């Protein structure tokens, strides 16, 4: 809805909406989001980040190829999983070097945003 907020005596017009705990705001020519419960900016990497020893689905989509097997060594930046969403392929890469601890997805599986797909045991833990 359209809102007006007075800041330092000046009225500012904006659009705002709460959707599933996220506040969406359009103001001054751009859209930004905030976490409505904490009042902080929405986590930019929602779903994409997590801890770096995990490869997490950055979007909802289908797993089309798993390029590593459990126990295999990986280098940082190595492609490990291929996903497809909206008719495009996205290759997910390992953030760190190490060995594949576990694989929690299967080829053909439709995965949700933020799902941990692969866990990597860091090289330093070997």
């Amino acid at each position, binding site marked *: *809805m*359209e*809102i*007006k*907020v*007075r*800041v*330092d*005596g000046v*009225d*500012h017009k*904006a*659009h*705002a*909406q*709460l*959707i*599933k705990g996220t*506040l*969406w*705001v*359009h*103001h*001054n*020519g*751009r*859209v*930004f989001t*905030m976490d*409505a419960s904490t*009042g902080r*900016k929405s986590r*930019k*990497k929602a779903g*994409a980040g997590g801890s770096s020893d995990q490869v997490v689905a*950055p*979007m*909802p*989509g*289908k797993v*089309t*190829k798993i390029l590593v097997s459990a126990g295999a060594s990986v280098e940082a930046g190595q*492609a490990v999983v*291929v996903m*497809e*969403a*909206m*008719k*495009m*392929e*996205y290759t997910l890469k390992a953030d760190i070097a190490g060995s594949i601890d576990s694989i929690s997805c299967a080829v053909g599986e*439709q995965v949700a*945003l933020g799902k941990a797909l692969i866990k990597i045991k860091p090289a330093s833990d070997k």
Partner: protein
Amino acid sequence: MAKFSRIAIANRGEVAVRIIKACEELGIETVLLHSEADINTRAYRMATKTICIGPAPTAESYLNIKANVDGALAGGAQAIHPGFGFLSENADFAEAVTKAGLTFIGPSAESIRSLGDKVHCKELAKKAGLPLVPGYQGENQDVAHLILEAEKIGFPVIVKAAAGGGGRGMKLIKSSAEAKELIESAQREAQSAFGSPKVFLEKYLDRAKHIEFQVFGDSTGNVIHFFDRECSVQRRHQKIIEEATSPSLSDDLRRRMGEAACAIATLGKYKGAGTVEFLLQDNEFYLLEVNTRLQVEHPVTEEVLGVDLVKMQILTAQGEFVHDPKQVRVPRGHSIECRIYAENPFMGGVPSTGLLGHVEWPEGPGRRYEYGFDAGDTITPYYDPMIAKVIVWDETRSRAIQKMIRVLQDSVVFGVHTNIPYLIEILSHKEFVMGTMTTRFIETYFAEALKEPELTSLDKKIAEGALLQLRGGGMQNQGASNSPWASYWRGI
């Protein structure tokens, strides 16, 4: 040929809406052939009749020839408009439609085979003496063989889906080392998007511009062109911003390319709307491919020429449209189109799906919006990320750019992230403003994810005030009691 009273639409999203609008203008009813996933969409609500042709995966619905033909027959349609993408360039589909006693709104199956098949088209172009980009278009699809052919051509090489379009199944191979992975990936994407894994290879021209000509064959087979569009701004080989006419062509080049476009379309006995795509480098042009269909970017041509290409397609299929030789078409002003994708520009463009919240496209002169979703609709991961197109027209290119930036800044899409901030950055870039961009423009200047601007203290205060109001807590606390809007705020 009898006039159509009902047309089936074998497509979805904004193109389905565009076709419905054209049909409404002609007093024709529509039957939307849709998947189970597309019930909450604008086209579904707008169509006269809707028929579900299968589940969400495209192979089981939008790419299923029999389901589409059966749906059109069950819906009582006399013709099928395929839109763009999906089955629009599938000769077997055009043939199946005709065999079922329906009219295919587009070129004949024969024309699609000779021009739409990228490999065959190049053979035809060779005969016509048109310049071609060196490449491999053979039948041998073995990956090892394709790698050898790529090495013969010399890297960088582009691998493309033979039945493709829209950048799907297209990969740039820079060296032998990455050839296997990229060719296999292109084959998988081609299979997924077009139902065929067939690919071909082409030398990558690294300083080229993408220029295309809108051709139109009337009911008698007479082909003319409707001038050019520049589509050099591409990411992952997919167009993002298109404009008409191109800022890169001299009158002489425009004339020669237009003649070449009409020559190949005439050779392919073309009827209806099609596009001849060229690469332009160092003032030399090369035929890239012919798209035997309507294109996403057709509105910019419509805006500068004052034509309705979809209406013309329908009238041509009815045998009623003939080019008027007395009517001299001259492009007027400049038009730009931006594709709005549901993706997060601050995370490298990963798809953003979910329920659409508030959506607002600002009205005003010289603005046009083509969209397939309203507030409350769901953006699913099953289909293309394009949710809307914004088209502007103005008297000069620089004014059109300024208008587009303003329109994008004023557009509101909540619920999914969009590439709007990315588009604004591109439109503001000096190379785009000067019109000197090539197809490498994006990878040169916008390869990295956009940096998300920090929220200012004003942004935070606006957000705090908004949250308070949305939760029914009235206005924000900064001296609001003096505001003439105080009671109004509470009432919103």
